[in-house]
């Protein structure tokens, strides 16, 4: 007690501002506690402020707009409750777009993730110029999506495309990639896969390097081959990473826009995804209604929210599906 009194004693006289008065001390203490408790929130606040302004608010506002007949060309916004959603669900073109999106998603994501897994596995082997190969994986991902789509659209051209030229010189016939449903989906899926395979491979690689060596040694001693090791050791061990890539690829795949839009060319086919809407994705469908002749923002907002729900459901299903990996193996 006396020591404490001695310590505070000189301070009281030395500090004329009275900061160390009982009230001042309480204030200091409060400030300290506030600093400890509140500061972290303050530091992360900018993110949340920005997220609220540019993420949450538009999201909520879109929901609000989606309950209106809301055209950019008119100042009158009529409340229609769920009218837009009703119209949407009864529009066969919407279901067509949903089907196309799912088809492209499957065609793009499944081969892409399998290829990424194999590539990552190869990259764990001892290679000369390891950094070169790993960096090379990322290059397609750095290319702008528009450039990728433009180049691939030319490669898949009907009359003068490289792919058809190769097919023809191999003795197979030419393919009008754009006019068929399956062919156009494949062409678009190739663009997506080309851009994202390397990226996913690097993520898998990072996860693989965290798998303890002794697990492999044990598997090796048990006589597991390289491939068996990949599917029975590596895949179960990096399951959280696989869940991550599957979900991210799903979210991206369900929002594909630039690839089909540019594949369709500058005319009306770029908006409807071909004359028969054979490759119109959900985002393209949204674009057709929101940013085309009618500028129907209300309807487009309803499409956006429906897409959001679709993405949540599909991501959830994928998650449940991938979770079975461990129990299966």
């Amino acid at each position: 007690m006396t020591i404490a009194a001695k310590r505070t004693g000189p301070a009281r006289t030395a500090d004329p501002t009275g900061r160390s008065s009982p009230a001042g001390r309480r204030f200091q203490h409060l400030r300290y506690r506030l600093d400890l408790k509140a500061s972290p929130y303050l530091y992360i606040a900018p993110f949340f402020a920005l997220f609220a302004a540019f993420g949450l608010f538009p999201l909520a506002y879109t929901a609000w707009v989606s309950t209106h007949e809301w055209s950019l060309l008119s100042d009158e916004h009529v409340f229609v409750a769920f009218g837009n959603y009703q119209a949407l669900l009864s529009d066969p073109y919407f279901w067509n777009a949903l089907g196309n999106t799912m088809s492209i998603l499957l065609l793009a994501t499944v081969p892409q993730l399998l290829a990424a897994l194999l590539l990552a596995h190869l990259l764990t082997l001892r290679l000369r110029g390891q950094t070169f190969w790993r960096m090379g994986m990322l290059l397609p991902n750095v290319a702008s999506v528009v450039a990728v789509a433009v180049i691939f659209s030319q490669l898949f051209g009907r009359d003068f495309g490289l792919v058809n030229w190769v097919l023809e010189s191999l003795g197979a016939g030419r393919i009008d990639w754009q006019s068929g449903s399956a062919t156009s989906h494949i062409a678009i899926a190739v663009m997506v896969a080309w851009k994202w395979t390397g990226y996913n491979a690097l993520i898998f690689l990072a996860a693989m390097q965290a798998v303890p060596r002794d697990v492999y040694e044990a598997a090796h001693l048990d006589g597991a081959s390289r491939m068996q090791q990949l599917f029975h050791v590596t895949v179960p061990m990096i399951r959280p990473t696989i869940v991550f890539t599957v979900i991210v690829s799903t979210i991206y795949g369900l929002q594909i826009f630039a690839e089909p839009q540019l594949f369709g060319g500058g005319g009306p086919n770029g908006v409807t995804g071909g004359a028969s809407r054979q490759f119109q994705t959900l985002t393209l469908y949204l674009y057709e209604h929101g940013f085309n002749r009618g500028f129907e923002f209300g309807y487009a907002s309803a499409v956006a929210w429906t897409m959001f729900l679709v993405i949540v459901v599909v991501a959830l299903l994928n998650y449940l599906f991938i979770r079975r990996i461990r129990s299966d193996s």
Partner: protein
Amino acid sequence: MKTRPIRTAMAAAAAAALALTAACSGGGDDGGKITLSVGLFGDFGFGPLYEEYSKLHPEIEFEERIAEFADHHTNLTTHLATGSGAADIEAVEVGYISQYTAQPDRFHNLLDLGAAELEGQWLDWKWQQALAKDGEALIGLGTDVGGMAMCYRRDLFEQAGLPVERDEVSALWAGSWEDYVAVGRQYSEATGGDYFFESSGNMFRAMVEQADEGVYDRDDNLVVESNPAIGEAWDLTVEAIEAGMSNRLQAWTPEWNAGFNEGTFATIICPAWMTSYIETNAPDSAGLWDIATVPGGAGNMGGSHLVLPAQGDHPEEAYAFIEWLTAPEQQLKVFESTGNFPSTPALYEDEALTGMTKAYFNDAPVGQIFTAAAQAVRPQYQGPLQGDVLATIGQGLGRIEDGSQTPDEAWSQVLGDLESF
């Protein structure tokens, strides 16, 4: 308390200074200079004319923004609706002009800016197209018109045993579009199935543009189903598709561009502006292309107006410029450099225009051909979503071309799609 008036005065002065600088920078003035922004789709050949105008008016500078055709009009609509972002001067293609004349208050009324006295300068129908329904407001001045001709490949015609000289070629289909399709059959047979034209949508559009009434009546009702001219055009186009004449290309795609040089098709409908397009796309094919008359009489395809969005800050300066730019002298210069055909009849008597030939097209007398085409045009009323309606029908023809639908299925889907317009 005493200092307060001084402070207030200082604050006021500061605010005024701020406002002043804001006014200067916001208006695009820079040391007394005014920058006019010009929004176009594609190259209108205005480059040298900006320089010429800036020499006459040193205080005016230009900034050109070029976008793709469809994007340009979508952006313009967005900018008009949101009240910001539009250029001082914007080009509008004829397929979109009615959409904008329906909302004249979004544009500066050119009648108030001095256009009222110039009415006689343009083809009457060109003037009418930019006039609001009530005739009280004019939103744009005409640049070019797209009187139609038919471009054809001399080398391919020769190989097919068809006449090569333009007068004889014109005579082949002088009667009607049926004759054109008959020539197409002949061509296909002689060549073993080569394509006669590039896209059926263009052929259909040309026939529709020649009719007295197009896809809209004068009250802006869609008459696609009831107008017999549309039905006839559709049927004949379908006939040509089924005979295998169409190269099934989509306009403005890389494949289409390549087709001009590779000679994958023998004819293409040629409004005046198309000639420069062919020339730039197929520079190696000089002398191979020639120009004949179009079947079925005269008609207009394309052509543009220059409009001044009301959000622009310099209506007087912008108007003075477009008045100068669309005057006959300047339109003639544009025609010389790009092939976009003038919309001012005064030039149609002018030897400088009528005597013009184009070396690329085997010295075709383009002046004469397109003057005759423009003079013969009977104006057709253009409805608000003209461009979109024609695109929707074109897609229907596309579905027949790629074999995904029968003509009847395609037609009923077109009508279904048009219901949402």
